[in-house]
């Protein structure tokens, strides 16, 4: 069956460092991969989308890579800040976008 794995353990890093979160998947050939941010008690907020033919995408301090051979996406936050503390979800979609699977998310804590 299709499966998405995000590190269930929280990631703790020091302010100013780069946070790297991982999303691995199996039995799936996604056309798109998305990353969302979710704060406690709130709905997810869309951050970035990357297509299967794109290796890397950037937006301000955020960078996403997509390796369809390794079946893995990495999500980087450079110069991290305490305000970046949240849960980050990855989501995979096949062509057409109507079949999307979300990962359970990784909690990030950035210490001042």
């Amino acid at each position, binding site marked *: 069956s299709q499966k998405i794995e995000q590190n269930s353990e929280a990631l703790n890093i020091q302010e100013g460092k780069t946070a790297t979160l991982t999303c691995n998947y199996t039995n799936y050939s996604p056309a798109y991969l998305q990353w969302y941010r979710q704060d406690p008690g709130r709905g997810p907020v869309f951050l970035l989308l990357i297509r299967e033919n794109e290796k890397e995408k950037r937006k301000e301090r955020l960078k996403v890579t997509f390796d369809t051979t390794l079946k893995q996406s990495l999500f980087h936050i450079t110069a991290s800040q305490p305000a970046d503390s949240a849960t980050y*979800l990855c*989501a995979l979609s096949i062509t057409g976008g109507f*079949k999307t699977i979300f990962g359970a998310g990784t909690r990030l804590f950035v210490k001042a």
Partner: protein
Amino acid sequence: DVKVTQSSRYLVKRTGEKVFLECVQDMDHENMFWYRQDPGLGLRLIYFSYDVKMKEKGDIPEGYSVSREKKERFSLILESASTNQTSMYLCASSSLGGHLSAFFGQGTRLTVV
């Protein structure tokens, strides 16, 4: 500021009650979705709609129904609430890209007692 608004943040209902969760979006999006989110399980799709009066089952539709009479409004109905439907419910909308770059509501924390 674009918005997806869910009618309640917190809701407590009794087992067997019929429960209505309402969602309204102001972005003129074609697609709307209902998810539930449980710890460790991620978001699971209950139903979605890609047009007025159209609906499609998601991965876990049992015990739920939906209604989309107007483009901006998508309602989730729990026909007879059960304790295993205690969860966070999230509504989302998107434009023509299906689930892509979806906008989510703030969520409704439903407790069934």
